[in-house]
């Protein structure tokens, strides 16, 4: 089977600092794939290059055979790629409900409807998504006033509202309590399996990585130094040296 997401010879640098160095990468449909690497390894940049937030200096990104380079984020979302962000990226003054509702409105292309009341649309769909991520009780609260962990869950609900086939999660459990982390891993795994999604995620917490990922790629100084199933990566000498060795107690 050919790759769902194919990345070839991708380069990106910022004022001389190379953040992505000759990255080639294939992601098959249905795969649960983790990108790991120390802080500053270029994980977020890698996501930004895929989703159109940044334009690569060189290289190709294609999704289901379509070239993504040069497309703005809003067009890439429409092709079926949604993402969450490492740093909270919600609508702080909208209610939790509206945060998700507006994503459903956009998914259905109703943002150009000047007449139908926005609040009356997709109430059922919004409720379902909030239940799915465990935020049903907080629907009426203001997004920006939720706890950090819950804002992360809201991020996930917003991303799912775009009905993606490929879901990109940038450190979905960063800043969460151990209990929230456990719940989030379980719910992400369930959702991805139930909806038949392909998952690409970055993560710091090794327990999370080995709890979800079927395949792992290790990013170091902008380069992929190893890629494979969890056992292969865990036992890779290079990986142990640059990364796992540093905080091996997590692994």
């Amino acid at each position, binding site marked *: 089977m050919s790759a769902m997401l194919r990345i070839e010879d991708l380069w990106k640098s910022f004022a001389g600092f190379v953040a992505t160095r000759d990255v080639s990468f294939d992601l098959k449909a249905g795969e649960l794939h983790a990108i790991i690497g120390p802080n500053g390894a270029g994980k977020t940049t890698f996501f930004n290059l895929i989703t159109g937030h940044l334009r690569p200096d060189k290289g190709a990104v294609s999704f289901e055979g379509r070239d993504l380079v040069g497309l703005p984020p809003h067009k890439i*979302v429409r092709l079926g790629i949604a993402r969450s962000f490492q740093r909270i990226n919600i609508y702080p*003054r*909208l209610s939790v409900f509206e945060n998700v509702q507006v994503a459903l409105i956009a998914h259905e292309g109703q943002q*150009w409807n*000047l007449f139908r*009341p926005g609040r009356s649309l997709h109430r059922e769909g919004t409720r379902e998504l909030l239940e799915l991520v465990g935020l049903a009780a907080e629907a009426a609260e203001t997004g920006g006033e939720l706890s950090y962990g819950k804002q992360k869950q809201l991020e996930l609900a917003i991303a799912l509202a775009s009905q993606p086939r490929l879901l990109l999660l940038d450190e979905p459990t960063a800043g969460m309590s151990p209990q929230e982390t456990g719940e989030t891993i379980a719910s992400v795994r369930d959702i991805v399996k139930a909806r038949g999604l392909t998952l690409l995620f970055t993560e710091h917490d090794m327990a999370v990585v080995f709890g979800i990922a079927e395949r792992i790629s290790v990013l170091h100084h902008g380069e992929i130094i190893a890629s494979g199933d969890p056992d292969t990566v865990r036992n890779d000498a290079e990986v142990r040296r640059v990364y796992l060795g540093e905080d091996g107690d997590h692994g």
Partner: protein
Amino acid sequence: MPQRRHLVASAIVVLLLALLPLAGSRYAIDLTTEVLIYVLFALSLNVLIGFTGNISFGHAAYFAIGGYACAILLTTHGWPLALALPAAVVLAGLVAAVVGYFCVRLTQIYFAMLTLAFAMLVWGVAFKWKAVTGGDDGFTGIKMPEMISHHVGYFYFTLVMVSVGAAALWVICHSAFGLTLVAIRENSVRAGFIGVDTKHMRWAAFAVAGTFGGLAGALFGMYHRGMYIENAFWTESANVLIMVLLGGIYSFVGPIFGAAALHLLQTFTNQYTPYWPTVLGLILLVIVLVLPDGLIGLVARLKGRRGTHKGRS
């Protein structure tokens, strides 16, 4: 549905206003007419500021275009009101669409400066195109249709136009479109990542704001029987901006109170002292220091309610 409560409240307000000519003096009727026009002007600007999060320093341009176009079509070309008014409104909207096309490429202060630059260009046209606009003498002696030439008739005409305009803006601001604009205001990057073309949406908001600003301007010109280049000047843009801020940008109704409060305050202050700009400065200080959410925010705080500082009233 909260809509029902709003509808009843608005109907009562409009009805009470309609009774004004029975009791009010000519002075009260004229003053209320002016306030109504500024209410529509402020509401139109808040589509951009409060709902989309784009601060325009040049909204007077569309007010002036609506005003001059309606005046010129009625007077110079002898068009009937039923044609001249819609044509003026459409023209204001079209110019806003052209200007907006360039402005939405920028954000924040650069966006604001570009709106100001275009507004000064409009002012320059009004100033220099003497044969058509009357230049710095202004365009005076607007030919008014018989029906609305009396001040009571004009008051009712304005009341109907402003009510319809405000209702239309209410529907737009609370539509799927309006909710998406609020999402753009709150986090335009995120809005892009749910599939919203934020540039196009901001462009549409700009055109909507200009269209209704044009309607306010047309009403203003006919009320004064003339348009003057001051109406296109940046101070007029600043004035309506202060109205919006004073009322509160995060609520649909805020600018209504801001426009009424500021215009009445200005009128009364001018009766006692020539120092209106000083008073205006003090008002601005108060807004910035203690009323960041405007009068509406103050009311909400006094009531001890939470959550009213959102994108809706």
